[in-house]
């Protein structure tokens, strides 16, 4: 039988929303406080959902230790306590939570092969969350 397994992880990072293609006024009008020059930070919660047949031998969709190990190494170690604007994936792209959610989805989609990735949900604050399903 097919089940969906979801796991939530926390990391903290900073960003500034600013587009080189916009004037200073347009950046301010578009991004408001998020355009403040030195950036600001969030405690992000990333919720990863994978799916698959429940293995008859283990009772699992995939081994949680594999998922935790992958996310810790490839996502939390990568983004935790970083300034997102300084990272190469955001050299040409504004590190909005939409774009960060897509980046994380693609990392998991490419590298985690023990189960099917259903979605990545990213909470920027308790009030804002974003979800990408590919």
């Amino acid at each position, binding site marked *: 039988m097919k*089940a969906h397994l979801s796991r939530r992880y926390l990391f903290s990072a900073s960003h500034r929303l600013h587009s080189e293609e916009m004037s200073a006024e347009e950046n301010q009008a578009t991004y408001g406080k998020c355009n403040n020059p030195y950036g600001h930070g969030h405690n992000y919660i990333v919720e990863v959902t994978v799916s698959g047949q429940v293995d008859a031998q283990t009772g699992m969709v995939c081994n949680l230790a594999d998922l935790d190990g992958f996310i810790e190494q490839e996502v939390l170690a990568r983004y935790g306590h970083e300034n997102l604007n300084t990272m190469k994936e955001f050299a040409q792209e504004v590190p909005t939570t939409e774009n960060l959610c897509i980046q994380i989805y693609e990392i998991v989609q490419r590298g985690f092969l023990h189960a099917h990735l259903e979605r990545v949900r990213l909470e920027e604050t308790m009030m804002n969350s974003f979800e990408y399903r590919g």
Partner: protein
Amino acid sequence: MVYLTRKAEFSASHLYHNPEFSPEENRRVFGKCNNPHGHGHNYTLEVTVKGEVDPRSGFVVDLKRLKEVMHREVLDAMDHRFLNKEVPEFLHQIPTTENIAIAIWQRLVTKLDRATLHRVRVYETPDLFVDFYGEA
């Protein structure tokens, strides 16, 4: 179509162990969850049903009835139990969160009169949960 979700909590203990595995393999696959005397969780159950809103009552389902069914079929059997020893489904099957969600689905699916079961979600901790939609 409207979806309605009802939550409940239960506390239970379990351990992960496959008698077909060697002790070393059990330890490697299940880690601390293989500790021989078990450990416990506060589980949160979310049952989502779907259906058309009844024009007379304005309900998808009578919540009181749904609550009673959840109590009778699930909580009475699993709350404050050692799942491996006291719940029939887990005498020969590992009580992982996946299998608990499937077992709860199977206990509920034929017992709901008006609405259709849509999803069973079981939180083992606030950071780990499984959804089962009755898919083969």
